[in-house]
């Protein structure tokens, strides 16, 4: 009986977890639909939901291809940022000297508006995927480095003291304590970065591209095919959400202890 009640409450919680966001989305779409009808807005200004669905179905193959292009740029740029960012953070966290050398530079680079760099990247690297990957990298790098470095520097004194009392080597201290302790903070950086990653890819595609969802939006804007632009935007939203919740799920699996500790 108690077991039944418990599983019942779990089902209820699932319903709340999934049902509420879906309800919110449905309400928004309904409102949007209503607005387009009540104010009889022109399709090329704000298309109704059914126009967008129509555009989506009409060019499903094409849109999927473009989604794939953008997704690939996003993931590649993100991956490069992780591979470069984490060691950079380790360097910063392990040496005062390196920290003093790298940190101001990093802050300065981060202060440059990335949109300003986008045209230059096109000049340097052309219209292919490379400038997009670089742009994604630039946006992701900073939050990953900052979070990871913060995490690596936040090891509680008693844990450091504990392993010191075993006369542990620096490597042992790092791998047995400091790095695992930093992982939840690393995840915070990764989640911030992944949300920026999609934005980076789209910015780069706006400036100069012959493929990708950003390119689709620019093209459909030029030809006043607003429903197609909306469909592309919806797909960008989907990419963001999927990547973010993917990381979230990964965190739950590899860091089951993290939630209770932060």
């Amino acid at each position: 009986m108690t077991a039944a009640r418990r599983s019942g409450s779990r089902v209820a919680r699932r319903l709340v977890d999934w049902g509420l966001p879906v309800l919110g989305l449905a309400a928004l779409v309904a409102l949007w639909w209503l607005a387009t009808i009540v104010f009889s807005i022109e399709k090329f200004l704000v298309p109704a939901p059914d126009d967008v669905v129509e555009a989506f179905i009409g060019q499903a193959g094409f849109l999927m291809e473009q989604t794939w292009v953008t997704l690939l740029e996003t993931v590649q740029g993100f991956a490069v940022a992780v591979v470069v960012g984490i060691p950079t953070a380790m360097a910063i966290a392990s040496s005062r000297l390196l920290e003093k050398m790298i940190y101001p530079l990093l802050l300065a680079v981060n202060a440059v508006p990335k949109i300003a760099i986008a045209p230059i990247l096109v000049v340097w690297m052309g219209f292919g995927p490379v400038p997009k990957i670089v742009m994604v990298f630039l946006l992701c790098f900073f939050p990953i480095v900052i979070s990871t470095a913060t995490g690596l520097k936040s090891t509680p004194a008693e844990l450091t003291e504990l392993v010191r009392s075993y006369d542990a080597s620096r490597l042992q201290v790092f791998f047995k304590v400091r790095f695992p302790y930093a992982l939840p903070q690393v995840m915070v950086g990764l989640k911030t970065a992944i949300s920026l990653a999609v934005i980076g890819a789209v910015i780069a595609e706006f400036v100069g591209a012959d493929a990708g969802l950003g390119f689709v939006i620019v093209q459909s804007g030029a030809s006043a095919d607003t429903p197609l632009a909306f469909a592309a935007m919806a797909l960008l939203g989907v990419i963001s959400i999927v990547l973010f919740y993917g990381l979230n799920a990964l965190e739950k699996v590899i860091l089951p202890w993290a939630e209770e500790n932060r």
Partner: protein
Amino acid sequence: MIKLTHVSHVFAGRQGEVHALDDITLEVRRNELVTLVGRSGCGKSTMLRMVAGLLRPSSGTVTVAGEPVGKPRQDVSFMFQRAALLPWRTVLDNVLLPVEILRLDRAAKRRRAHELLELVGLAGFEKRLPHELSGGMQQRASLCRSLIQDPLVLLMDEPFSALDALTREELSIELQRIRMEQEMTIIFVTHSIEEAVLLADRVAVLSPRPGRLRKIVDVDIPRPRTLGRNAYADRVAEVSAELHELLMPAPIASEGAV
């Protein structure tokens, strides 16, 4: 077993120097349990850290088993006020952490870890993560971890002071039991006079900063001791009163009942 000779320590702090310890000379005999009491900030932790090899005294010498302490020794283990368990490791893996770092025999130590966990009443909790345990259970796991390397010397820095009174007493009794099973020399820092009397062969009383050795009080009460009603209640009260007077500044002691 442990010998401090004219040990003084001065920290170079941000706001000038802090004179933490002044001319401490103390010998702890083999298998003896000395409790260290004194106002907070009088240098108790500093003293333990020196014996552990985590800190070098500004002057004076510290020896363990006749050898000057240079760096942390494998046969000296440290237990802190906070359990200091690694939150991603299970209880068993936390207990085995020293085994990995010190590269001890894993199979034998694994068996020993199970024994120790059983001894402190944590059998069945080996696979739990620290956050799933109560404060008392975490501190028990921490105790097992400090025993896994079979230390000759155990340094305990207010290990039970974050626990509620009943759990604290329970753990004190367990510590006495473990001492009967295994020979160890222990320095135990505490704020609690009760705890000091319950556990100690001798109590070393430090004066407020800079910490000087004020007095060493012998506690010649037969074991096992408990805090409840017992045949030695008078003797316990007497020693407690003496410690209380040593620790409390005179005006307060004359005002209230001791």
